[in-house]
């Protein structure tokens, strides 16, 4: 399965290579293709290796989510066909897709109950989340060619990053069901054994299975990343909006505070705050959020200051708009796109900072399976020649951060010409 996706991915790249949009070198395209193909192949092989899991439900979960995803793809194809024929308008078509997906979700309930009567809810959640992730991957690979063509290589960057992230999310979501051993269990295998049959990625110094840890270790990181982005957004954006709109003393004071925070080196500040707050997912997210809020604030503020002076905002005032109306209806929607770029870079940074915090010993209790911990321990093991403990989790961190970064880069490139236009 991994191979076919990789092949079709490469196929799409080859088609596009024939008409490069930006004058990127062929090398650039190849590297991008390798990165994406490599990620998906890696994720796929990990899943395949692991599917024969302890709970015995590994294969049904993988198959189930793939079926879900394929059904979404079929519905998506149907929708495209109907839109082309004119039966559906694009808006109704999307509603159709969403509706059928929800229907699929509902159908899966009895299926989950049947398979695992005791914990059917967890299983059902996995089916839906994993299935949607696979579905989005498949739909993108099929239907987004025209969008890619229009956007050119920046679109490709965004899609590549997006797919990488989705693949890792998928793997993390189904991780509970496919891991051969509980990632936190110690002494399931011999201590510090290199990769060999039975333990495809080797074992750690506590006898934990590295494959299980690699598959499951992303969960905390993703939670922290998403949570911190959410906090940043709902604090940074309103503050930025208020500050630039009201101006005056409030603006000056807030800008001063934000600049002060911004001047601090990010990781150090995060460490300081995490040390104060103590371990835990929410505390880690808060620590990272504090470091990042100034970016949101500044970007939004500068966008608002520019947009606020544009004629169409004044035109709204001429029609009788109050400050509140112009702020929410006219300025904010036009300022938000640049925030999206900040958000994706924030994701990437949050992942790396979370790894960093755990590496330093802050943030999580020691028995939670997390790539950060593997980095810490693996670092010490390198001297003894045990290269595998740090490598595989390390690669996954890099790929996750890279994925988010590509999304941000691509969006940045897409938005800049749009603004010029």
């Amino acid at each position: 399965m991994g191979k076919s996706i990789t092949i079709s991915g490469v196929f799409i790249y080859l088609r596009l290579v024939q008409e490069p949009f930006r004058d990127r070198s062929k090398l650039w395209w190849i590297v991008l293709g390798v990165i994406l193909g490599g990620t998906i192949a890696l994720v796929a092989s990990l899943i395949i290796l692991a599917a024969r899991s302890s709970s015995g439900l590994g294969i049904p979960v993988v198959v189930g989510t793939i079926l879900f995803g394929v059904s979404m793809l079929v519905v998506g194809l149907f929708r495209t066909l109907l839109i082309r024929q004119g039966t559906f308008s694009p808006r109704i078509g999307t509603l159709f897709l969403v509706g059928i997906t929800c229907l699929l979700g509902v159908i899966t309930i009895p299926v989950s109950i049947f398979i695992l009567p005791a914990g059917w809810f967890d299983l059902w959640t996995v089916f839906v989340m994993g299935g949607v992730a696979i579905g989005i991957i498949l739909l993108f690979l099929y239907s987004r060619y025209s969008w890619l063509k229009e956007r050119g290589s920046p679109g490709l960057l965004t899609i590549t990053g997006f797919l990488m992230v989705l693949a890792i999310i998928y793997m993390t979501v189904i991780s509970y069901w496919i891991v051969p051993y509980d990632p936190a269990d110690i002494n399931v295998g011999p201590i510090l054994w290199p990769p060999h049959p039975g333990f495809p990625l080797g074992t750690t110094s506590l006898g934990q299975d590295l494959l299980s840890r690699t598959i499951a270790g992303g969960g905390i990181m993703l939670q922290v990343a998403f949570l911190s982005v959410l906090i940043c957004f709902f604090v940074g954006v309103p503050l930025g909006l208020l500050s630039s709109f009201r101006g005056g003393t409030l603006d000056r004071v807030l800008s001063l505070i934000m600049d002060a925070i911004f001047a601090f080196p990010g990781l150090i500040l995060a460490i300081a705050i995490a040390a104060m707050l103590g371990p835990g997912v929410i505390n880690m997210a808060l620590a990272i959020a504090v470091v990042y809020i100034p970016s949101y604030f500044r970007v939004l503020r500068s966008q608002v200051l520019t947009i606020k002076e544009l004629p169409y905002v004044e035109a709204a005032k001429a029609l009788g708009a109050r400050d509140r109306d112009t702020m929410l209806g006219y300025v904010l929607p036009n300022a938000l796109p640049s925030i999206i770029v900040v958000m994706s870079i924030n994701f990437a940074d949050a992942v790396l900072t979370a790894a960093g915090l755990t590496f330093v010993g802050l943030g999580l209790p020691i028995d939670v399976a997390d790539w950060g911990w593997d980095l810490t321990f693996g670092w010490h093991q390198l001297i003894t020649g045990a290269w595998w403990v740090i490598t595989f989790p390390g690669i996954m961190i890099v790929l996750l951060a890279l994925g988010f970064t590509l999304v941000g880069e691509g969006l940045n490139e897409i938005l800049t010409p749009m603004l010029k236009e």
Partner: protein
Amino acid sequence: MPNLLEIHNLSVEYKTRLGIARAVDNVSITLDENKTLGLAGESGCGKSTLGRAIIRLVPYPGRILEGEILLNLDEDVPYENGVVEKGQINLLQLDDDQMRALRGKKLAYIFQDPMTSLNPMERIGKHFVEIIKAHEPDTPKEDAQVRTKDLLEALDILPERVLDYPHQFSGGMRQRVMIGLGLTLTPQLLIADEPTTSLDVIVEAQILNLISDLKDKFNLTMMLITHNLGVLAETADSIAIMYTGRIMEIAPTEALFESPQHPYTQALLQSVPDVRKPDRKLSWIPGSPPSLTEPIPGCMFRPRCPHAMEICEMEPPPLIKSASGGIVACYLYEGS
């Protein structure tokens, strides 16, 4: 006397998200020495792109596809690795170093917006001295400064302002400086892209007077790009009308206004108000030009043309001699 500039079958295209746009499509023009050619047309007709293609400064994502731009160079021009020889040369065959040697010295270009075309960190005098030094590095500084002061006098700028910064000049003064910079090395060809569009009426008139004085004084050949036909009526010897990247008509100025041949020219002239005749009925051209990324077969003006015929849909009309002494691209005159 051979032509100063001959453009043959020039095409420039832009790669955009929506496709490939032919900004300049198979354009051929000649410029006579010591004459002013007006390049007129509405937004998006390709006139600016044409001007920039001549000095080979077409911005990315545009590129020159094909064609020749033949300049009759009046002397040898040295550059880093040699000399660009006197005589007729094809500008599109020169490399970057050679083109750079020609730009400023033999080909001058004035940009539209004088507000942002000057370096705000440098005094005005330094702008001039820099240009002189760049092309004639052996000139002693004092000579360069004297030349600068003379030039400023010719531009009606007080010589003591040589120490001022650009932001201390008004828009009209800055445009004079731009013109002066263009003329510092007495080029053969001056291309001005909408030089007075961003200026007020009275300043515009002052600048146009200045340009016509300098034209005589420096024996200039000029290409004036603008959408304002009134300006061209005053300053141009002949006018070329462009539409969607193609030349529709070229004629001597008086002939163009008195007996416009191409239907587009006729319609255009009827939609330009004349301040002396406020009661004359203004007309307009219904519809809008086809998108450059989706050109239509045949004549691009056909959908809006009151005289459209079947043949107009098939092939773009070739440029043929017109009754007014110029050339026109229209099937109405085929066979006459």
